[in-house]
């Protein structure tokens, strides 16, 4: 490895200096994991149901839906966009698969093809959104909002009541474990690692950050803007589709109200994790923490039997505090 100015300077720095630098650079990530540890610690000390291993595993499992969607969302947010259609994409994947299962008499042989179909649907929606945004130069937030509304109508057209007829083996993708670790947690970990490597180790990853920093500068530095942005939306929709598959396995029915509120929760997770909502700054490491925190809080609330409406209020409070604590990366 060549000696760069940076590495040379680091050698001259004393150890404590390097530590403070590390803490300053990763303040938001350290903060979010600190808060999670605090919440878990307090809950574990005060509630014995909480600290049972099965409950802790439950939290991990509950976090995968919001976690998966948030991982995809953070890639989009890095490009300076936002994907408000993720919840509806997750829902339409679940509903389509459930409809086909119901029509074909819940044939277990269809499981693998239908999973692939679900991922394909997600990918197609993602590329459609991405191409629409890059070709029309429209505001991504609002256009995905509109797409979400269309999909909501289509979803209700598919079914207004839960669809039964999911074969038993399919439910295993939520229940099954390798050793003690549930498969879905492993899948999320794999996708997270993929996203981490994508954003930190590849040229595409740097392009994502560049595009989020400034579209103009990115274009002038010969970064393929359109391709990068479309890729981000495809990844986001792919993650949402995966979440939809797990959600279907969790509930066991094709639910026309599945993943309600997930688009906003995923953005909250991303913001909690310290990614700038203006794009171009932050790390996917924090996102996972954001998702985990949301899942932990919801679990604690349920154990304490807090009224669902007060949970909503509390979520709103968290959002407002996160938002108010927000610091602009650059002045206008």
């Amino acid at each position, binding site marked *: 490895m060549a000696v760069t100015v940076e590495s040379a300077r680091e050698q001259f720095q004393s150890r404590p200096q390097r530590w403070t630098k590390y803490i300053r650079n990763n303040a938001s990530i350290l903060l979010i994991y600190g808060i999670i540890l605090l919440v878990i610690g307090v809950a574990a000390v005060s509630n014995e149901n909480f600290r049972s291993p099965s409950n802790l595993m439950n939290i991990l499992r509950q976090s995968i839906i919001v976690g998966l969607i948030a991982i995809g969302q953070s890639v989009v947010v890095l490009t300076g966009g936002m994907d408000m259609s993720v919840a509806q994409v997750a829902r339409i994947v679940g509903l389509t698969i459930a409809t086909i299962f119901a029509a074909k008499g819940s044939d277990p042989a269809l499981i693998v093809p239908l999973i692939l179909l679900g991922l394909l649907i997600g990918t197609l929606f993602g590329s459609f959104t991405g191409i629409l945004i890059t070709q029309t130069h429209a505001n991504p937030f609002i256009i995905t909002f*509109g797409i979400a*509304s*269309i999909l909501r109508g289509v979803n209700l057209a598919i079914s207004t009541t839960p669809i039964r007829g999911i074969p038993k083996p399919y439910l295993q993708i939520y229940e099954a474990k390798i050793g003690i670790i549930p498969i879905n947690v492993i899948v999320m970990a794999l996708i997270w690692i993929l996203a981490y490597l994508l954003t930190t180790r590849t040229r595409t990853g740097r392009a994502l950050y560049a595009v989020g920093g400034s579209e103009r500068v990115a274009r002038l530095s010969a970064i393929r803007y359109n391709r990068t942005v479309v890729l981000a939306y495809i990844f986001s929709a792919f993650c949402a589709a995966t979440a939809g598959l797990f959600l279907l396995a969790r509930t066991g029915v094709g639910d026309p109200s599945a993943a309600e509120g997930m688009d906003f929760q995923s953005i909250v997770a991303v913001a909690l994790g310290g990614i700038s909502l203006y794009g171009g700054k932050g790390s996917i490491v924090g996102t996972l923490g954001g998702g985990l925190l949301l899942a932990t809080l919801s679990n604690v609330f349920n154990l304490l039997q807090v*009224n669902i409406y007060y949970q909503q209020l509390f979520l709103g409070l968290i959002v407002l505090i996160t938002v108010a604590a927000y610091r*602009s990366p650059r002045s206008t």
Partner: protein
Amino acid sequence: MSIQTTAPKSSSSRFSSFRPSPRFVRGVDLAGQWAAPIMIVVVLLVAAIFTPAFYLPTNLKTVGIQIAVLGIVAVGQTLVLLARSIDLSVSAVLALGAVIVVQTEAGNPLWISFIQAFAVAGVIGFANGLLITKRQVPPFVATFGMLVFIQGARLAYTKGQASGTVPDILRLISFEQVGPIPAALIVWLIVNAIVLFFLLRTRYGRWIYAVGGNPSAARYAGIRVDAVVIAVHTVCSLLAMLGGLLLSGYIGYVDLRLGSDYNLNSIASAIVGGTTFTGGRGNLFGTAAGVALLILLLNLVVVLGLPIHWQYAMQGVVLVLAVALQGFRQFLLSR
């Protein structure tokens, strides 16, 4: 469009070979401005041919009241969009207003609950403005956070039950007619006239356009940009509250999902009417046309006897098309 073959010199052409002809740009610009009025005529014609039931007086009255409610909210939304911001909390404010006024059985006189309602709306708008200007939160995130918070507060307060009786005065305003025109529609016209006067005839209106057009330039020109943004958000929340009161008078009760579509619809109607996201461009005539178009389309879903959830799809299609058209128009104009 024509494609220039000689090597272009301008920097913008270095990464794109797309060179639209002036005629094409002009066409898109005109389409962006006139899409809503033209589509209204088309929709009315289609309705005349396929569903004469659309023109029944009772249906027209329903359409009128719905236009009034959405129209009032959309006026506020247009102001916010003109100042290069966005307000996603209107639907929550709208629903909150209904809750506050409907639950007056506690014994408060009516005017006190009205004052309460508008005070709360003012505070919410003010808080939105503060978050956006002083904390530099992206507008949609700040107002969306506000939305979640207000909804949570409302649910915690009402425990999620539909309830209440609507005061007579509200039912009166929403249902009575002055001549052939619903009273609510007159309220809408008055609101439009007042805001239009401020936009076109006073310096405050110019400030809003200036802030939306170019915030830094506006700041150098001595305009207090932050104050303008805060004011615009406050007005928007107040108008949303007014819309909520009219809506509760029209519906007659308050339920969980009351007004939840008004975010999307108010934005969609402003955008359809030619207001752009990047601020400084658009007017209330366009918004009025956008409101009328959207309500007509939504009503058509009902009159044609389609399942009600196709309204969602209709809203979405209108919004996506409008945003795509306006985004493209803005892109062409800014080159």
